[in-house]
C-alpha cells in the first residue's frame, strides 16, 4: 500500500515499538514522556516500555498528581513540568571558552555536538510553542545557530489529546487540542473494547518514509471517526478558558489596575511559571573564570523576568516590585509578544497554573485585569 499525505494509517498497539526501532535505526535519539519522581517528564528513552503506560495526571492550580488508569493507554495524560524547549533551547549552554596567552587571550567557539532528536508525544499546544520559539530564534535579524541546528534535525511525532486537564485552555488560544501542522507524524490513540491502536496522519516526506518501516494498514472510516471523537472529548473537557478579545490593548491600558497589586501579594516571584512555560525564551549570559584565572567561558542559561537581577541597571532594578515583574511577564506573554513576534506568547498549556506553588491562575488574573464592564479596579 502506498502512503500519501492524505492517508490515515493504523498502527496496532503491538507494533508501536517498531516506531522506536525505526527511529533508532535512522540515528535519532528518542525523547518521550516517561515517569520520574512522581511526574511525567520528557527524557531520552530507548523503547516503548519507558512510556507512562497506564498512567494519567490530575492537575489543578498549584497541584499535580499521577494516578493509575484502568487501561494501558500510552498517552492518557496531559503536559507535565517539562516542555520540548529543554532539548531545542537547552537550559544551560556553553557558548565559548577563552584562554589566556602571552599577548592577552584567545577565544575558541564551542563546537556543540547537535543531537538529532525524535520527539514522541508532542501535543498540539507544544507544536505551537515550538513554532513561537522558531520565530524568536530563527526569524529575527540574527539566527541562533544552536537552536536552528537542533530544530532542523528534529523529527516530530505529535499526538492528539484524548483528554484535557483541569488547567488546560488551548481552545481559547486556538492552539489545540487537534494537531494541525508542524509534525512528521501525528497520532491519535484509540481504545475500544479489546482493541488498542493508533490512527496516524502523515505530515512530511520523512514521516512517510518512516511509516514504510512499520507494520501498518489503511484506517477504516469508523476508526478515523473514533480518533476524531477522542479529540472532541478533550475539547469538551477543557478545564479553563480565557477571553482573548482585545487582550493586547486591554493589558496595556490597564497598566495601573489594582489587581496587579493584589496578585503581587500572592506571587512568590519564584519564576516557576517561566521555567515550565514552553515559550519563555529569556536567558542570562554569564562569563565565568576558573580558579587559576587562565581560562574563562561564556555560558547561556535560562533566566526569569521574576528575578531582581533581570532588569538591573545603574545599581538598581528597573522592576523592583513583584507587581511590576508579574505585570511584565503576563503583559509580555499576552500582549507585547504580539507586537514583537506576530502571535501571542501563550499556547494555553496551563503549566504556569499547575506549577505555581501558590496556585495563581493566569486565566483568572486576565479576567480581572481585562474586565471591561468592571471599572472598580482601576486606580
Amino acid at each position, binding site marked *: 500500500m502506498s502512503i500519501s499525505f492524505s492517508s490515515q494509517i493504523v498502527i496496532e498497539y503491538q507494533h508501536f515499538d517498531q516506531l522506536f526501532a525505526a527511529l533508532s535505526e535512522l540515528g535519532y535519539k528518542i525523547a518521550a514522556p516517561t515517569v520520574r519522581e512522581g511526574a511525567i517528564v520528557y527524557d531520552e528513552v530507548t523503547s516503548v516500555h519507558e512510556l507512562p503506560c497506564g498512567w494519567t495526571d490530575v492537575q489543578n492550580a498549584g497541584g499535580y498528581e499521577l494516578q493509575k488508569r484502568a487501561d494501558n493507554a500510552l498517552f492518557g495524560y496531559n503536559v507535565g513540568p517539562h516542555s520540548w524547549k529543554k532539548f531545542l533551547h537547552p537550559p544551560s549552554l556553553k*557558548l*565559548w571558552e*577563552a584562554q*589566556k596567552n602571552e*599577548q*592577552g*587571550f*584567545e*577565544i575558541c*567557539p564551542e563546537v556543540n555536538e547537535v543531537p538529532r532528536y525524535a520527539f514522541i508525544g508532542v501535543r498540539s499546544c507544544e507544536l505551537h510553542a515550538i513554532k513561537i520559539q522558531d520565530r*524568536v*530564534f530563527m526569524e*529575527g*535579524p*540574527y539566527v*541562533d*545557530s544552536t537552536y536552528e541546528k537542533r530544530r532542523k534535525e528534529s523529527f516530530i511525532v505529535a499526538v492528539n489529546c484524548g483528554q484535557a486537564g483541569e488547567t488546560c485552555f488551548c481552545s481559547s488560544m486556538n492552539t489545540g487540542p487537534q494537531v494541525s501542522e508542524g509534525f512528521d507524524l501525528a497520532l491519535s490513540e484509540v481504545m475500544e473494547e479489546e482493541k488498542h491502536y493508533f490512527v496516524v496522519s502523515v505530515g512530511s516526506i520523512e514521516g512517510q518514509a518512516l511509516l514504510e518501516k512499520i507494520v501498518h494498514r489503511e484506517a477504516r472510516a469508523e476508526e478515523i471517526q473514533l480518533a476524531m471523537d477522542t479529540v472532541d472529548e478533550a475539547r469538551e473537557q477543557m478545564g479553563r478558558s480565557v477571553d482573548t478579545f482585545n487582550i493586547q490593548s486591554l493589558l*496595556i491600558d490597564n*497598566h495601573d489596575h489594582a489587581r496587579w497589586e493584589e496578585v503581587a501579594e500572592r506571587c512568590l516571584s519564584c519564576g516557576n511559571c517561566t521555567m515550565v512555560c514552553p515559550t519563555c*525564551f*529569556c*536567558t*542570562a*549570559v554569564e*562569563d565565568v*573564570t576558573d580558579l587559576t*584565572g587562565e581560562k*574563562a567561558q*561564556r555560558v*547561556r542559561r535560562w*533566566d526569569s*523576568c521574576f528575578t531582581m537581577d*533581570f*532588569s*538591573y*541597571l*545603574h*545599581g538598581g532594578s*528597573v*522592576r*523592583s*516590585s513583584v*507587581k*511590576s515583574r508579574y*505585570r*511584565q511577564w503576563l503583559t*509580555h506573554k499576552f*500582549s*507585547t509578544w504580539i*507586537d*514583537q513576534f506576530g502571535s501571542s506568547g501563550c499556547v494555553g498549556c496551563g503549566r504556569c497554573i499547575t506549577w505555581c506553588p501558590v496556585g495563581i491562575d493566569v486565566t483568572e488574573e486576565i479576567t480581572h485585569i481585562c474586565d471591561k464592564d468592571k471599572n472598580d479596579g482601576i486606580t
Partner: protein
Amino acid sequence: MRSDPMCPNIYTVEKMAYDTHDTFTLELVAQQENQIVSFMPGQFNMMYLFGVGEVPISISGDCERRDALTHTIRAVGTVTNEMSKLQVGQHLGIRGPYGSYWPIHDATGKDILLIAGGIGLAPLRPVIYHIIANRSSYNNVTVLYGARSCKDLLYQQQWEEWQQSLNFKVTVDSGSNGDWNGHVGVVTNLITRKDFAPHNVMVMVCGPEIMMHFSIRELLRREVKMDDIYVSMERNMQCAVGYCGHCQYGAKFVCKDGPVFCYADIQDSFRKREL
C-alpha cells in the same frame, strides 16, 4: 567577522586617555586585519574584558575612521572599573556594532539640535563628526551639553574646533567654587528660540532619563513634533541580538529596536514606572 553573534573578536588597546576623573576613552585596533566593521552614529558594541565580563558601550568615534574603534567609558561598575585600568597593548573582546542609529540622513537640510547630558555626549560625538564633515548638508546646528560639574566635562580639547562649525553651549549643574565661568543650571535652560525652527528641526537627545524627560517636555512646549525628537535608551543588555530578553521596554527590545528611538514610537512607555 565571525558568524556567531555571541563570539567576540579580539582588539588591542592602542590609546588610553582619561577624559575626566572617572571617564576614559579607548582607541582599539583589530588584532586581525579587516575586522573594523563600519558603524553608524549611535550604535554600540559589547566589550568583553577577559575574566571579568561584558558591557554594552556606545561608539564615540568617527564613522569615517576605519583605522581604530573609539569608545568613551565611565567607570561605574565591576567591568568598567577594571577597564579603567587597561594599558596600551592589552586586549579586549568586541562584538558588534549593534542597534539603531541617529537619523543623520533624515536630518539633512534641517536645523539640528543635539542635547547631551553627562556621558550622553559620547554616543552623540559621532553625529558631531558627521555634521562637521558634511556641514553644508545641514542648516543651523546647535549642541547643548550639560554635566554635573566642570570636572565632568568631556572632550574639552575639541570644543574650539567644534565651535567653528556649530553652535556649542555648555552648562554645569553646579559651579560654585570659582573654577567655572560659563552657564550654571540644567541643560534644558539652554534651549532657546533662536537656535532652531521648531517645524524644521531634528533633535537628538542623550543622557539620563530624567534629563531626557525634561528636555522633551521643553521641546514639545516649543512645538517641536514628537516625530522629530530622537532619544537613546538604556536597559540591561546581555546578548545584544534580541534573544536574552533583558532589555525589553514595553514591546521594544532596546538592543535591536533601539537604543535610538523616535520619541513618537515610545512615548507611551517613556517614564512609565517599572515598565
